[in-house]
């Protein structure tokens, strides 16, 4: 069910000089949200900014078994994210959703490997919870520029989600892009399989969200080791409803990489796509 709500800011937590987590009283949207879905946010009044911006739902907030809100993980970059960074308790933020095609969680014995780059952590709190509820063994590969920009590590640890960390400056974890430890572990996983030909490809499902070059690298490395992937893309969106045709991404039907690519709207055909479905540049 699609809802537009003037959501009250319950709290706003600054994680760093650029990142914040804003909690919004939007229980109807939160209760209906599936992992990987997004909301369209309108902050401020009038013409600046004019259009809404898409945000993955980060956490679904519960108290006494009742859903009472959701949070957004935001990095201050533009007008909307600056307003979200500066918002204080009691402000209202217009919130439309839930929107988009969600992740498909896998069941045991398959494992789930979630790969996050920077603010691309956003969909993996809800996905992690959904996977754990199914009893699926879950790992988070999480990369950022520096250790000070790796957030919510204890949140994931306390839920028994294994963490594999990477930073560009080496302050925490591998000094590398997050795809380096992913590739290392995919290779190790493959070597543990006695006969790769006889095993289904879904032994590990790779989930990714982050900058598009990272998603492309994840999709390719997953495919190279015979694993499926689901990636959440972010394109410039005007409406989030399929009305404006601005957020298109080139895909090929049926994973046939020889077929011509065509544009689909990432707001309604995505934002989650199979990694082998996207016609990467």
């Amino acid at each position, binding site marked *: 069910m699609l809802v537009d709500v003037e959501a009250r800011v319950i709290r706003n937590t600054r994680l760093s000089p650029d990142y914040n987590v804003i909690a919004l009283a939007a229980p109807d949207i939160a209760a209906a949200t599936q992992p990987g879905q997004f909301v369209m946010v309108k902050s401020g009044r009038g013409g600046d900014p004019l*259009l*809404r911006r898409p945000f993955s739902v980060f956490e679904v907030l519960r108290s006494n078994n009742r859903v009472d809100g959701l949070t957004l993980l935001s990095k201050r970059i533009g007008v909307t994210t600056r307003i979200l960074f500066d918002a204080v308790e009691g402000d209202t933020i217009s919130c439309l959703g839930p929107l988009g095609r969600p992740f498909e969680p896998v069941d045991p014995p398959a494992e789930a490997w979630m790969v996050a780059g920077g603010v691309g952590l956003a969909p993996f709190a809800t996905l992690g919870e959904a996977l754990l509820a199914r009893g699926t063994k879950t790992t988070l590969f999480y990369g950022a520029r520096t250790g000070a920009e790796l957030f919510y590590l204890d949140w994931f640890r306390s839920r028994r989600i294994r963490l594999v960390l990477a930073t560009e400056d080496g302050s925490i974890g591998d000094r590398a892009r997050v795809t380096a430890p992913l590739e290392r572990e995919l290779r190790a996983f493959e070597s543990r399989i006695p006969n790769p030909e006889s095993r289904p490809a879904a032994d590990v499902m790779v989930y990714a969200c982050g900058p598009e070059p990272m998603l492309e690298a994840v999709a390719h490395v997953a495919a190279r080791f015979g694993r499926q992937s689901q990636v959440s893309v972010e394109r410039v969106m005007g409406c989030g409803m399929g*009305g404006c045709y*601005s957020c298109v991404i080139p895909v090929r039907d049926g994973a046939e990489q020889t077929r011509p690519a*065509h*544009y689909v709207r990432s707001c309604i055909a995505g934002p989650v796509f199979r990694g082998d479905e996207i016609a990467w540049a």
Partner: protein
Amino acid sequence: MAVDLSVQIGALTLANPLIAASGCFGYGVEYAEAVDLSTLGGVAVKGLFLKEREGHPPERIVETPSGMLNAIGLQGIGVHRFVREKLPELRRLRATVIVNICGSTLDEYVELARVLSDAEGVAALELNISCPNIKEGGITFGCSLHGTFDVVSAVKKVTPLPVIPKLTPNVTDVASFARASEEAGADAVSLVNTFLAMAIDVETRRPRLSNIVGGLSGPAIRPIAVRMVYECRRAVKIPVIGMGGIATARDALEFIIAGATAVQVGTANFVDPFIWGKLLDGLTEYMRRHEIARIADLVGTIDTTSREKQWISS
């Protein structure tokens, strides 16, 4: 007080003057979860060519002050898939469907009109002769008085449906294009399409749109659009359908008072897909407050003669 919101576009009666603008509402079905399409005066679906089109590569939109620039490039499924895949659903939802059509040649417009006249559930044809974003499209017709006259006459010959050319504001005198349309037999004109515009990222010195230039819409263009509707109203007798940055009922009323029989809402629907009920409520409230029974009686009632009638005593 009961109010009558219905308006007449040629032989077509619309339940109210609010039409979802082409290019801003997908094929209509995308919005069925947000709004009962049968409550809209009309749904102008995304511009259709005969064949499927991929459109321009991203970036396709960029936000500007109180507006947005777009260069989508008329991505679309083509008329045949539209008739097969979308029209039955629009019929089921009881939408008043206005199909926006676009061709590279006169023959293509004629063929599109034939196909859609044979289809069940099309209420009117809007001729896209004004998209600023594609070289081969109808803008060549829309920027020439003869071209406008020729395409309207040719389509009128092959369809019983009301024909509504959608005019570009990127001409010296838009009213003369309204006149050419009327002389060619158009049932109404709609205006304005977007203003040709551009935006540049000064850090990279690159254009913000892949197509370099695009069409500007949103509240930023509204006063210019109101002026153009006013000019066209004075130039022709056929109905004028006004659009350009309408975001509230007061905005819609401004167009209606300037001379628009109906209005289209585009960019504002992106911001608020639940806008339609709010606009209808606002129109109704205004009519009750001003004791206007029929909204058709409000069309073109701008008062340019009388001066301020009373002083507020202090």
